[in-house]
């Protein structure tokens, strides 16, 4: 008997718990020649803003021990071009389409959410709150509980789509930030975004990234991500999408056991474009081997006893 691997993120039904992490899967089409997008639980597209964004100057990425730093600078084609040029292609697949978005003011977040909610074919929204708040002197939206509450609350009023808030790990207490997001109306939380890091060239004595700092991802951050999912699970009732260094089915299962309802594959997509499908198959094989009929019975089992 094949186990049931379908999961729910709020009202959003996923045929399996494997999603793609925003920023690592382009607009989906980049991967369509490598795998059948219809096999995925959900496709989460690259973060969009109301207006196109050029991004940071290169070098934008640096490889580190079992990981990589990126400072792409949220380069994207803007919401309108996404809707007209990318969404029609994505809609030909039988998968949930989740759009990651951001703004540099609360008004921009709200306007972006409203626009994305007004088109057919988008099944959920994921808010990136790890970007600077221009109004408040460039503090990060997602590191101040008051600002997080305000921006999530404002977006909540602007959309009826399932709303996922992607939490920044660059905080003292991520469980608190998860509570704040849930109380402000988030249907789910993504845990975690990248960890801010740096690499220096000893020859030039300068940071290797043009942006100086970047977001660390890859297997190097998995233990931190897993701990954060574990803590958030204890703190909130909303579903958690676990992510951070997932390379294979075993990694994915660890996140589910820690409390994640679904998981997202990020940096691993860069190395093995088909890895998300391999992970779905690996999860199914594990459940069969362990005689588990429903993946939902595995969730959070690390907390028992």
């Amino acid at each position, binding site marked *: 008997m094949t186990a049931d691997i379908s999961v729910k993120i709020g009202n959003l039904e996923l045929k399996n718990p494997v999603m793609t992490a925003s920023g690592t899967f382009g607009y989906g089409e980049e991967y369509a020649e490598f795998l059948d997008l219809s096999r995925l639980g959900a496709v989460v597209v690259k973060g969009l803003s109301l207006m196109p964004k050029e991004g940071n100057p290169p070098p934008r990425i640096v*490889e580190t021990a*079992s990981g990589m730093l990126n400072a792409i600078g949220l380069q994207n084609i803007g919401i309108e071009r996404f809707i007209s040029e990318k969404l029609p292609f994505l809609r030909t697949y039988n998968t949930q389409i989740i759009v990651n978005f951001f703004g540099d003011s609360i008004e921009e977040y709200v306007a972006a959410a409203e626009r994305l909610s007004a088109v057919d074919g988008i099944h959920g929204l994921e808010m990136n709150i790890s970007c600077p708040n221009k109004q408040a002197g460039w503090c990060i939206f997602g590191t101040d509980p008051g600002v997080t509450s305000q921006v999530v609350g404002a977006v909540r009023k602007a959309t009826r789509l399932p709303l996922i808030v992607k939490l920044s790990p660059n905080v003292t207490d991520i469980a608190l930030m998860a509570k704040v997001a849930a109380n402000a109306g988030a249907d789910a939380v993504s845990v975690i975004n990248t960890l801010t890091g740096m690499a220096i060239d000893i020859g030039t004595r300068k940071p290797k990234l043009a942006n100086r700092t970047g977001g660390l991802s890859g297997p190097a951050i998995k233990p931190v991500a897993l701990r954060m999912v574990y803590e958030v699970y204890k703190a909130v009732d909303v579903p958690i999408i676990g992510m951070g260094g997932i390379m294979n089915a075993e990694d994915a299962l660890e996140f589910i056991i820690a409390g994640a309802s679904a998981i997202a594959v990020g940096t691993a997509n*860069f190395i093995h474009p088909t890895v998300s499908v391999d992970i779905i198959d690996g999860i199914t094989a594990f459940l069969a081997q362990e005689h588990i009929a429903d993946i939902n019975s595995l969730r959070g089992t690390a907390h028992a006893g």
Partner: protein
Amino acid sequence: MIEVNKGTDPLLKRAFSLFRKTGDGLQILYRVRGKGTGILRNMKEGASLDMLGPLGNFYPLPSEDQTPLIIAGGIGIASVFSLIERLAGKAIVFYGARTQDDLLMLNEVREYAHDVIVSTDDGSAGRKGTAAETLRSFLPSYASSPTQFCIYACGPHPLLKALSQTTKEFRIRAYVSMEEHMACGIGACLGCVVKTHDGYKRVCKEGPVMTATEIVW
């Protein structure tokens, strides 16, 4: 993109030029520079590797009446070699490297090129200076019209930048193969961009070959 190991350090695949096709496969020419190429060097004969490719574009071929001039700096020869081969005796190659020992595959280049003008930074072989400098001294006496030549180049960024100034001055069309840190190789990560007059372009997808005039040097 070549996967040099199955572990997580180094994590990413490595981007290489396809050096040349052989009867039953293809060859990669590389210089040992860091962790990834160090692993490649220590591989045993007969070992297997995963690769994704070929990816990206190639040098557009010159028209019948054009003389192709090819500029290679150091390991940049790996990128232009298959073009030299394809142009079967037509290309004039300006091949520069740091020292004589860094002039890899020189005999093979000579075999397929019409002529090879060698230069080294330390003067240990050929002229002293870079391949771009050699080209710069060659052009005034030979260039009669901008469309007589078509230029192709691969090498370190400063060499390509210097070359682009020369080709701009002589109004000769030049194609340069760009290099940037790369993660995915399939256009998704947006890590390998270079600045062009038309915004950032991805080396892996819109490149690696771009025109010298479109790049913001």
